[in-house]
């Protein structure tokens, strides 16, 4: 027994060393693995005419701040089988699957060969009254070494606001010249709609131009009293946008736009019309740039990072406009006429960035929002102001459900009631 005892002791020791070594390697491997999760965003399908929204699937780091090149697919592969993915559209508890016309891999890092995103082009046009969710097949997007998939953090439902913005954008730049007829209550009756849309993107010295005109007529071709039109509504909006630059510190962008509508009854006896022109310009200038930089440098400098580099504040926005409201009924309490000239100034001054508050784990931002508007009623010959100054504190990285505190001073007469306001208002927003 004595002879075996030392051998057994050595074997146990070796075994323990082996287990410890394995645990060390495993721990090191786990520690070196970066957890990533999948997110879905909305993008544009490249080269599609008319432009369509596509779903972009990406791997992000744990904060969701950075999109990573982590999709490891065979070299040269630029497409994937559509059956690996599903797009589900839901409206009022009813879910249907949306077909996929193409799956495209992009953002391939030339050094590593790993891709950063996969775009799914849907067969159907996306709509804002649906919610969309993407399902990704297991092992559809293999990860590069050094990364692990944290599926619990996957965010595969499309953000509604993001979808809405993208669809607004797509709508705006989709050319259209078409007539459509929607049938009404009986045969021969319905709505006739004509749409003209023109979009010219800015490129080089070319200005961005956008024109949209619609005419909608409710018609009844089998009307007994031979009044074939019930009503006609015409709308026109147009804008031209351009950037301008005097010097590096004095530059900006502006647009001039027009919005108008006209509506008539079937006898063309009552015609209502509204029309307005608007000029909006961002004016980057040395004064607001100085204030932006100095205030943030004092309140928010952290270590080597200057405060003003924590946020690129928006240059002040100046607005001028004129509105005409024809044949619009107005009661005496509104005391307003048909023509108004408007001028406005809007500026979001960042006051502090990335600061901490007691009881909260996350950091906060604070802003002063200055929104001044003066309106001159040319019929009534009176000036009105409609102004608001707001101090706003909110969580820095939170999305719409984050905590926020606002304190605002409002003064003037705001539409639609035109009742005088002169008040300090406070509000808290919290998710629960």
């Amino acid at each position, binding site marked *: 027994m004595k002879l075996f005892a030392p051998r057994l002791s050595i074997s146990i020791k070796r075994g323990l060393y082996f287990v410890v070594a394995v645990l060390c390697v495993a721990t090191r491997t786990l520690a070196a693995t970066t957890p990533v999760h999948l997110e879905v*965003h*909305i*993008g*544009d*399908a*490249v080269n599609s005419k008319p432009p369509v*929204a596509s779903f*972009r699937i*990406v791997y992000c780091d744990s904060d*969701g*701040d*950075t*999109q990573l090149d982590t999709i490891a697919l065979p070299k040269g592969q630029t497409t994937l089988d559509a059956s690996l993915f599903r797009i589900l559209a839901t409206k009022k508890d009813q879910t249907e699957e949306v077909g996929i016309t193409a799956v495209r891999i*992009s*953002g*391939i890092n*030339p050094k590593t060969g790993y891709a*950063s*995103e996969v775009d799914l082009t849907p067969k159907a046009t996306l709509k804002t009254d649906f919610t969309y969710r993407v399902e990704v097949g297991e092992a559809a997007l293999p990860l590069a070494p050094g990364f692990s998939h944290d599926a619990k953090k996957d965010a595969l439902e499309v*953000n509604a*606001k*993001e979808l809405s*913005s*993208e669809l*607004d*954008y797509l709508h*705006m730049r989709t050319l259209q010249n078409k007539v459509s007829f929607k049938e009404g209550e009986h045969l021969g009756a319905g709505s006739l709609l004509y749409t003209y849309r023109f979009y010219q*993107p*800015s490129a*080089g010295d070319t200005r*961005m131009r*956008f024109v949209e005109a619609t005419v909608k007529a409710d018609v009844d071709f089998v009307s007994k009293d031979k009044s074939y039109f019930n009503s006609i509504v015409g709308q026109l909006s147009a*804008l031209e*946008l351009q*950037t*301008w*630059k005097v010097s*590096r*510190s004095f*530059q*900006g*962008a502006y*647009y001039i736009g027009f919005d108008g509508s006209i509506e008539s009854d079937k006898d063309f006896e009552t015609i209502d019309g509204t029309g307005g022109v608007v000029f*909006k310009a*961002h004016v*980057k200038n040395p004064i*607001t*740039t100085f204030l932006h930089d100095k205030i943030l440098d004092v309140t928010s400098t952290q270590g080597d990072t200057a405060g*003003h*580099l*924590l*946020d*690129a*504040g*928006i*240059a002040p926005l100046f607005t001028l406009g004129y509105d005409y409201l024809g044949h619009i009924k107005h009661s005496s309490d509104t005391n307003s006429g048909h023509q108004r000239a408007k001028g406005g100034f809007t500026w*979001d001054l960042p006051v502090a960035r990335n600061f901490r508050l007691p009881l909260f784990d996350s950091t906060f931002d604070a802003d002063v929002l200055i929104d001044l508007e003066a309106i001159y009623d040319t019929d009534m010959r009176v000036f009105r102001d409609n102004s608001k100054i707001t101090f706003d504190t909110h969580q*820095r*990285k939170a*999305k719409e459900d984050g905590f926020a505190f606002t304190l605002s001073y409002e003064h003037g007469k705001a539409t639609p009631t035109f009742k005088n306001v002169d008040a300090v208002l406070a509000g808290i927003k919290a998710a629960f």
Partner: protein
Amino acid sequence: MSELDRQVARQIVCDAFNHFTDIDLEPTAEGESVVIQKTLQGLDIKFLIAIHDQIVSAVKEAGCDSSLGVSGFATARYKTVKSVVNDLIASTNCP
């Protein structure tokens, strides 16, 4: 995308943003760290489209295509010039 130089991409993004911001974004390591999420979220969608158009047209002038959607860089995430450049590069294909 790969042939599109990162420095050129930074220049494109900074030029586009400099028309709308209170600071001067430099296409340098320091400039690229500036957070621009609030700029994007606070802009009228028409101006947002202008930034997007400028970026995409500059990419196209370089002979490439970009699938960077206007909302792809406008919402949801904590954006720096660096991350917009990364998104731009990730969404760009050059022949």
